[in-house]
C-alpha cells in the first residue's frame, strides 16, 4: 500500500502533490482574506463598471464557443480545409477507407515478407 509511483525512470508521491496543492490553496486563501474589508455584496460596488457604458445582459456577456481560439483556427485554416474534406458523412466513403487501408497494409506485409 505504498503511495510512491515508480515508472522505472521517475517516481513521485501523489501525497506530496496533494499537500503542495493544499499549501498553495491556503496561501491564496490567506491573501484573499487580507483583501478589502469594506466590500459589500448587492451594492454598486459589486456591479460591473464599463467606463460608464451600460453593461450588456448576461447572454451577451457570455463568450460563446465559436469565438474561443479564433486565432488558432485562422492559422490552421488550410489544414482544417483539407481534414474536413475527408470527413464526409457518407457511409460509402467509410468503407472505401477500410478497403484502402486493408490493401495498403496487406501490400506492405507481403512485400516485407518477400524482402526477407
Amino acid at each position: 500500500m505504498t503511495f510512491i509511483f515508480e515508472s522505472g525512470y521517475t517516481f513521485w508521491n501523489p501525497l506530496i502533490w496533494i499537500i503542495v496543492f493544499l499549501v498553495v490553496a491556503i496561501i491564496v486563501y490567506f491573501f484573499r482574506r487580507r483583501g478589502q474589508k469594506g466590500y459589500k455584496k448587492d451594492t454598486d460596488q459589486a456591479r460591473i463598471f464599463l467606463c460608464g457604458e451600460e453593461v450588456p445582459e448576461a447572454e451577451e456577456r457570455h463568450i460563446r464557443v465559436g469565438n474561443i481560439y479564433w486565432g488558432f483556427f485562422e492559422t490552421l485554416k488550410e489544414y482544417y480545409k483539407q481534414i474536413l474534406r475527408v470527413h464526409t458523412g457518407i457511409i460509402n466513403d467509410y468503407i472505401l477507407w477500410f478497403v484502402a487501408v486493408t490493401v495498403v497494409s496487406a501490400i506492405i506485409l507481403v512485400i516485407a515478407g518477400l524482402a526477407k
Partner: protein
Amino acid sequence: MRTVTGLILLLVLVAFLVSGMLLIHPFGNPSPTDMDDYIIENAQNQTGSNSVVASVVFDYRGFDTLGEATILFTAVTGVLLLLRTVKHKKENP
C-alpha cells in the same frame, strides 16, 4: 477522382483475394483434417446423434449456437425496440 481511386483499390483487393484463393488447398481434398475426422468418427457414440452436423452445432460447438440464438434474440429485441411507439402508454413502462 473518388471513382478512379475506388476502382483501383477494388481491383487490387480482388487480385489479392483471387491470388489468395489459388494458394488454398485444391478444392475437394482438404488437408489436414484431424479435427473433423475425430468428430465424424466419435460423434455418434459421444453425443448419440446420427447427424454429425447437429452434434457439431449443438454439442461440440454448442456455445456458438447459444451465441447465435442470442444474436437472433438481440436482433428481434432491437427491431421491436426501434419500431416501438414513441408516445407513452400507461400500461407498459
